[in-house]
């Protein structure tokens, strides 16, 4: 029978779960909703050669190529490439209720840049 292979851990640049909880700093007294939200974060390697699915730019490809021959130039970084907004319901400094849309709060996609 074929040898069972262990699953390789994917270390490449990708999105990871990150739940931000407002109650940790006691902000749940003025933030009515949501109690927290899934923000995500980007982390992982940007290895040479950069694969297409790593969502990179031509510049990142060039930089990674240069890094492969010169360590003084850093590799491309795994960063958010697309972000989305969340809406929050809260009480402001004057005790008035506000519903507001905040941009760039959730990572939708990561890439090597």
């Amino acid at each position, binding site marked *: 029978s074929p040898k069972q292979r262990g699953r390789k851990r994917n270390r490449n640049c990708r999105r*990871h*779960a*990150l*739940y*931000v*909880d*407002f109650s*940790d*700093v006691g*902000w749940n*007294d*003025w933030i*009515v*909703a*949501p109690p927290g939200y*899934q*923000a995500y974060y980007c982390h992982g390697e940007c290895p040479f050669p950069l694969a297409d699915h790593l969502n990179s730019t031509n510049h990142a490809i060039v930089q990674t190529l240069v890094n492969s021959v010169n360590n003084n130039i850093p590799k491309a970084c795994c960063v958010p490439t697309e972000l989305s*907004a*969340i*809406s*929050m*319901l*809260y*009480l*402001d*400094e*004057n*005790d*008035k*209720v*506000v*519903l*507001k*849309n*905040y*941009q*760039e709060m959730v990572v939708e996609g990561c890439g090597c840049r």
Partner: protein
Amino acid sequence: ESNHASLIPEEGKKKVPGLQGRWDAQSHELLRDFEATLLHMFGLKKRPRPSRSPAAVPRYMLDLYRLQSGEGDESGGEIAFEYPERSASRANTVRGFHHEEHMERVHELGEGEATPLRFLFNLSSIPEDELLSSAELRLYRQQIAEAGGDDNKTGLHRINVYEVLKAPRPGQLITQLLDTRLVRHNASRWESFDVSPAVLRWTRERRPNHGLAVEVLHLDRTPRRRGEHVRVSRSLHQEPGEDWEQLRPLLVTFGHDGKGHPLTKRTKR
């Protein structure tokens, strides 16, 4: 590796033997700066300290949030209004205001004339860079059950909402009609009145305003139970289970501060 983040940075939690006092002061300062940065990001000058716990949040604002974020689809049909797409599509900020109850005034105009009630709203918390696109005044009307009568033949009310143009004088109230509606008192529901022309001008000019006036006319001249249907003021004797904070008039503004996208309705993530 935990994927549940704390907003308190790990650096602030470290304790170094022999340097306890300095680290506590530094971590306190770090937390304070961190909180200030986050509050600035939210457009707040200081951390809100609600005067009451739990805070009185109008049900309409909560339902708006649920509808906009997609949670309204899971509420099982409890939300009794449609998402105001037209107003929300041009706004990234919605604010709710109750009137200054201590400044509430009944203006006696003369015998036989309806008595409007004047409401003043403090809109100074709206930032200068927030441009309002619309505003509505929401009034709750409570069903009046007619004993032995035909509900379809009685109970007609005309609700008029005015902008008060000048400081009131005894027996005189200079107003301009903003919106009007004909209703029957056989149902309990919220009514929305478009007060955009007045409120947008107030915030644009940033000068003190003279408020809004609400007039309720009983068209069939039924003397019984007058003033009970449209809830514009607190009852002298509160009914069991009644929460005036959830029934009182609510001014809702829709605006945009130029940062980010409007509050268009979303499906749940």
